[in-house]
């Protein structure tokens, strides 16, 4: 059972090594890359089915790397939450690599594109699976170093500048993360997340003073928010998203950002939820790290929705509209997480709100992946992505435009698409948050969601009317759409529709994931801390 846990990681690492070794044989390299992506999807499915979803599944499993017992070795844990995120990563990864084959030119695909792509998957997979705080830092770095290269991939002035800024910002973020990890180690005497949760739940029994935990976790929150692109850490998003190759942008939006969200949920709800530490900051008093998270993440989420929404409405390029929209959508994921943090630990609201955030994350990965890839296909065909130069694409290429239409409607949140359920559950969580704790902050969250929904309708309409309706412009008249790209887009659009139509099992999966995120004791049991005298 536990071997399934490490299988996706091995599949991705092996593919990265193989594709690097095959750099001189482009055709074989590409075939290996696709085979590796298929193997990744296969191992993720096998692991998720046998550990979490299947009839005889235990619900969670741990793998001790190198046979070193926890808490001394590195533990990989696959539970509901990790399984949900891995499933998203596998879906977006497979679509991106297939699209890359038909989109990135053969010269650009040679040598480094495929190994780097799979290393990006390795970093994300490791971050989703690891049960060790320092190891999480290492996986972040794996993912980031690849991201720097991808942002600079085309080597233009815009791309190198964006990559350099992205690098400097993230190096500072990594320094903060090391400070927080070192501080948590000094405070709790462990790096293993399960061990840390156990110690923080009973600080007196283990003789630790948990007072610094809130401040240190605040540093981690800043780092994770930087990865997720939440306001006020959103500056890198538009430049990096427009500079990277489009399939990689789909990966950034669908997978890398979700790593930040995942880390916030995992750290605060699984590891720190049991700690009770009085927080007394100016304008903020609380009894636990979650009480600190709720207002701070709520404010970040609200600000992201506003900044992203207004930013997207004002852009005049497809890629930039979707990049800003991505900032706003992450706000839609952050607000339910904040509602969950504010909810009382005993009630059902916490689980409902986390599930809402996860469903929205899935919706965002699918719809935004579809839209980023569509924008790339349009730009590939017309050589421009300025809304002013586009127009009448719906008449010119109905299939591609249909896929975009599905993506935009899902973004707006029309039933029966995935986005409908994402928005419905996010609003449901916010309304319940107002009911459970009436006050200006919970009401503000609800108002921000409403404003965000209106802004989404505005910019989605603007994209559709400006780029796809109306008279064909000269750029569109001569455009030839690549059918391989369209096939991937149609598959993604079908996924957006199918996930929405067959939503019940997806929601049960999200509920399982939310329950796993909140079940600290179950997490500790699965890791099985057998090393040392703490057993």
């Amino acid at each position, binding site marked *: 059972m536990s071997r399934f846990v490490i299988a996706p990681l091995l599949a991705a690492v092996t593919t990265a090594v193989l594709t690097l070794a095959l750099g001189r044989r482009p055709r074989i390299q590409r075939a290996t890359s696709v085979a590796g992506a298929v193997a990744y999807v296969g191992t993720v499915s096998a692991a998720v089915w046998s550990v979490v979803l299947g009839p005889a599944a235990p619900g969670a499993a741990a793998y001790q790397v190198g046979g070193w017992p926890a*808490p001394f070795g590195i533990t990989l844990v696959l539970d509901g939450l990790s399984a949900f995120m891995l499933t998203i990563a596998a879906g977006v990864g497979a679509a991106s690599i297939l699209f890359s084959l038909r989109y990135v030119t053969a010269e650009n695909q040679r040598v480094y594109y495929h190994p780097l792509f799979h290393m990006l998957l390795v970093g994300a997979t490791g971050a989703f699976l690891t049960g060790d705080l320092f190891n999480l830092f290492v996986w972040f770095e794996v993912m980031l170093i690849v991201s720097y290269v991808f942002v600079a991939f085309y*080597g233009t002035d815009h791309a190198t500048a964006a*990559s350099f800024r992205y690098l400097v910002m993230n190096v500072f973020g990594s*320094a903060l993360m090391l400070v927080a990890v070192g501080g948590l180690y000094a405070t709790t*005497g462990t790096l293993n997340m399960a061990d840390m949760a156990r110690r923080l739940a009973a600080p007196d029994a283990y003789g630790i003073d948990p007072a610094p935990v809130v401040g240190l976790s605040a540093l981690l929150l800043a780092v994770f928010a930087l990865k997720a692109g939440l306001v006020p850490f959103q500056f890198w998003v538009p430049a990096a998203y427009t500079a990277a190759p489009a399939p990689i942008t789909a990966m950034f939006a669908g997978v890398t950002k979700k790593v930040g969200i995942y880390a916030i949920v995992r750290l605060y709800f699984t590891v720190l939820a049991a700690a009770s530490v009085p927080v007394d900051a100016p304008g903020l008093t609380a009894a636990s790290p979650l009480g600190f998270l709720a207002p701070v993440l709520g404010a970040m989420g609200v600000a992201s929705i506003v900044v992203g929404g207004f930013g997207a409405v004002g852009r005049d390029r497809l890629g930039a509209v979707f990049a800003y929209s991505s900032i706003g959508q992450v706000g839609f994921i952050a607000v339910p997480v904040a509602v969950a943090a504010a909810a009382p630990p005993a009630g059902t609201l916490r689980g409902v709100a986390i599930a809402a955030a996860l469903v929205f994350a899935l919706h965002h990965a699918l719809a935004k992946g579809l839209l980023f890839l569509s924008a790339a296909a349009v730009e590939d065909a017309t050589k421009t992505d300025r809304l002013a130069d586009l127009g009448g694409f719906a008449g010119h290429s109905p299939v591609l435009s249909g896929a975009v239409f599905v993506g935009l409607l899902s973004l707006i949140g029309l039933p029966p698409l995935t986005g409908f359920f994402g928005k419905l559950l996010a609003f449901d969580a916010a309304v319940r948050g107002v009911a459970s704790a009436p006050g200006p902050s919970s009401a503000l969250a609800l108002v921000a969601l409403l404003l965000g929904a209106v802004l989404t309708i505005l910019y989605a309409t603007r994209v559709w009317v400006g780029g796809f309706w109306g008279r064909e412009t000269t750029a569109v008249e001569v455009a030839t759409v690549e059918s391989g790209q369209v096939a991937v887009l149609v598959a993604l659009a079908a996924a957006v529709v199918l996930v929405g139509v067959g939503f019940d099992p997806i929601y049960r999966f999200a509920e399982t994931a939310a329950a796993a995120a909140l079940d600290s004791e179950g997490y500790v049991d699965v890791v099985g801390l057998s090393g040392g005298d703490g057993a």
Partner: protein
Amino acid sequence: MSVALAVAVGGLFAVGTFLLLQRDLVRVVLGVAVVSQATFVYLIAMGGIDEGTGDLVPVLEVHGGGVPEVADPVVQALVLTAIVISLGTTALALVLSYRAYEENESMDVTEWKP
């Protein structure tokens, strides 16, 4: 000893942050390196640097204190890993800064296009 380390960490962070905020590309890269060094010193300090007894080492204190007079091995493993990662990142930052200079034709970050 802890005071000296605290001053060293604080000083390195201050210098690193100052360099990161400069407009000159090379100074920014130096800032990247200095900030990373600051975190390494900090990490080592987190293991307890006073002369070794078991109760100063977090991992030994809570997992059996039967090993006296030893420095904390965990932070050393951490710092080694972090140094390797930082080496890679700094090297990439150097290459990228040269390339960005070539493309943008300026060492002044504020003169680059947004």
